């Protein structure tokens, strides 16, 4: 019996915490991903995009200068975007429902709540690979169809329900 073969994936990790970047990178290598680029902010991510040509981005939300939300919107809608359809996982400590909805409305593919675990990250990767949603283009939004897979796109503990 075997599982998903992630060895051909190229993944960019964008987070201003060096420790979180290292941890996510290490988890990804454990899953078999060989090509990972760490960047410390959205500006560096955008600058490296064409050169690295990622298949997937994992980004933090709360970063100095350009926030993760703004970064996602630029990838989705900016004229200079390398690939508006790029799958994006938002990894963040924000878990309040309004924040999750804001992330979804920015055009992310999946939401992964910190603290991050190997288990939750692996599940998110599988979900993004299996994601069959179409993209929606309207005057105010471009991104994966938000009307389906809503609960499936949330990963991690649901702290709202406990407290």
């Amino acid at each position, binding site marked *: 019996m075997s599982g998903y073969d992630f060895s051909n994936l190229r993944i960019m990790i964008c987070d201003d915490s060096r420790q979180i970047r290292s941890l996510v990178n290490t988890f990804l290598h454990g899953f*078999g991903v060989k090509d990972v680029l760490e960047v410390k902010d959205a500006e560096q991510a955008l600058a490296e995009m064409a050169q690295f040509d990622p298949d997937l981005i994992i980004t933090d939300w709360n970063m100095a200068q350009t926030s993760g939300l703004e970064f996602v919107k630029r990838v989705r809608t900016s004229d200079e975007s390398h690939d508006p359809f790029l799958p994006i996982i938002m990894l963040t400590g924000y878990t309040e429902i309004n924040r999750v909805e804001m992330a979804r409305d920015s055009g992310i593919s999946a939401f992964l709540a910190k603290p991050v675990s190997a288990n939750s990250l692996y599940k998110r990767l599988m979900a993004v690979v299996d994601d069959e949603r179409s993209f*929606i283009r309207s005057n105010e939004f471009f991104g994966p169809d938000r009307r389906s897979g809503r609960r499936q796109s949330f990963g991690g503990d649901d702290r709202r329900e406990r407290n």
Partner: protein
Amino acid sequence: MTAASATERFPEMADYNMIPAPRRLQGKVPKSGGPTPEQAIRQALDLAEDLMDEYQGWAVDDLDKLWRAFRDCGDIGVTKDDVNRMYRISHGIRGHGGSFGFPLISSAGDSLCKFLDGRNTLGKGELEVVSLHILVMKAIFRQDLKGPCGTLADDLPELLLALRNKIDLAG
């Protein structure tokens, strides 16, 4: 109560285009040939062991930053910037703690974020709540309370919630 329709929840959906996604990942990730999920996760955890061990060293720096930010609040009144500074550090701590094997640190960090979120200033009682959260985090490290920690994982958020509520209801 009736469920809102899709166009009520997403008004822009009244005028939109649906575009099939390229689904490039499916071409790059065969669903077999890799390690089983259990093997992959085990490998990931094994590789991350050293990072987990290093966490406590630099987490103390985060906690020191939080303590300094708290101390800097001083006696002349707490500004919105002071609150935001403590919120940002707490937000980092809640993300780091559980990621590196200390879920109780994330619980305490999460509680402090919830307490600070949306506040413009802090009075004496509110500062005491902040101080107690920091002391709780220090105690967790001092006692090396890693991993699930049994009932404490449920008790701690409840206790901190009660503490927050006590101050908020009194105010």
